[in-house]
């Protein structure tokens, strides 16, 4: 199932303004302004100028919040988004309780808020590094949805479920029983998306620091319905009883 662009000329628009370039512009702009985000609950709150607000919107990081402030725009980023800007793009500093946190200090803060944060972040980062726009997939029964470009230009192509290795199974693993696989596949089919499963393996490494992430591996699998008629190796012509040829 290929990309479904939302209008004529949108594909050309996307090609003319690739997401990688928008993200670079965002990175550069945030770096120049020495931006600081506030770690608050399970979100990172960011106050930015108009130019950065535009770049955040175009690169699909966070969600603009409605506030009474007129000079600045507040954005709410998820933990994965905030940590990606901080750790991977190194363009955001994050503060908690007025203390600036280094990546090493931020890591346990993130893990304490979400036990499976290392896995979800690895999946998020894996797709973002490939220039996919990654957003919450909760409305589709998935962990993320992945867009080829901005959601205004194209529909999301993949509903992404993060699958954990066996020993981490615990409370949060999906697709362990057939009914769940069936449900997820059928729902994806109904919303014209492909189910993409990202198997994250720690390869025996711990999750004590963000540097461990480099040793994690991500395996991508899509799950789709198998249609026998579409998967025949050859269509041979056979003669039926009355001599007419029928394709099987």
């Amino acid at each position, binding site marked *: 199932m290929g990309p479904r662009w939302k209008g004529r000329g949108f594909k050309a628009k996307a090609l003319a303004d690739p997401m990688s370039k928008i993200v670079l512009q965002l990175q550069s702009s945030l770096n120049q302004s020495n931006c600081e985000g506030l770690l608050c609950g399970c979100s990172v709150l960011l106050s930015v100028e108009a130019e950065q607000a535009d770049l955040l919107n175009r690169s699909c990081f966070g969600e603009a919040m409605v506030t009474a402030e007129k000079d600045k725009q507040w954005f709410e980023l998820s933990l994965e988004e905030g940590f990606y800007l901080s750790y991977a793009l190194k363009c955001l500093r994050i503060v908690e309780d007025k203390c600036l946190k280094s990546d090493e200090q931020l890591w346990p803060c993130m893990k304490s808020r979400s036990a499976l944060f290392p896995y979800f972040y690895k999946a998020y980062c894996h797709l973002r590094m490939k220039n996919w726009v990654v*957003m919450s997939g909760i409305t*589709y029964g998935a962990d993320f949805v992945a867009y080829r470009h901005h959601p205004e230009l194209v529909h999301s192509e993949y509903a992404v479920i993060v699958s954990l290795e066996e020993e981490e199974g615990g409370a949060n693993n999906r697709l362990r029983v057939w009914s769940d696989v069936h*449900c997820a596949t059928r729902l994806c089919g109904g919303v014209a998306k492909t189910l993409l499963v990202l198997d994250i393996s720690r390869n025996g490494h711990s999750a004590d620091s963000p540097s461990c992430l480099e040793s994690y591996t991500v395996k991508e699998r899509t799950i789709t319905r198998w249609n026998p008629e579409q998967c025949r190796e050859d269509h041979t012509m056979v003669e039926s009883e009355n001599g007419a040829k029928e394709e099987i």
Partner: protein
Amino acid sequence: MGPRWKGKDAKAKALADPMSSIVLQLQSSLVQSDAQGFLCGCNVLLEAGPKQTDLLLRACFGEPIKNLSGEPIINKNNKHWFYFGMEEAFFLCNSLKCLKILDGLDNCPKNDQELFQYMKSKKTTFPDSYKAYSHLRLKNWVVMYDSNYCADFVAYRHHPSLVHSEFVVILLSEGDSESNDRLRVWSDVRGTKRLCKVIKKALLVLSVDKNGHDATSPSCLEGYTVTEHTISRWSPEQCHEDHPKDDWEPSSSSVPLMPSGTTLRSKVALAPRQVSLDQIFKALVIFFWTIVVFGFGFALGKLL
């Protein structure tokens, strides 16, 4: 979401021929004929004469074995072969006491205890799934295995030819974390609920609690309890205090609507967009004037 009957007379037909009565007739027929099924893997096979075939089909127990063309196979004794799932077979045997089950290999009769242990060995969650199955069947719901949707069972108010199924049933085992593989995360709840909406069924979660009883024999099942929850979307507009009570059906749910530690926001439409009368009136006015303007322009063009 109430029952969706398949046709004008379907409801009357169902009321005239209640499922409880059909099941009683089936029970009586099987007892009279001393029916014996054969245990074969995870199924029980039964040879059924014409009358029992009719009753089994009407009561929705088992499936007739069919040939490649989809036609039920009739053997030389003019009987159909039916195959039952473990829950169905055990219900007929243990609860309705109208079916004896023999080992498929050596024809030795299996008592309830042996059967129970055998079925548990084939499916570790059998005690819970059987408890849930029998819980619904004893309330006269038609319970069938779900192969199309996303759940453990599908529940019908009466025969599937008369009414669409109302519930997809997911089974949860209280306190048994290893066998609980569904609805443990919010994405699964949301996805399942969304699919239920598409297929116009309600999501019924049956939580089976062993209450400290083990699962060594079928008599333990009497100590189990089954709690029913339906999960539905909460619509703020429908839940206002001054909203007429008739329009609001409360749904009980022990599943938290939002987990703690949700990391990614999602844009949740809390209620479907409703078109007001005012908007309809405005649209009609615009439409009317558009027709008038075009008509006038057309007439003017003709004149000139």
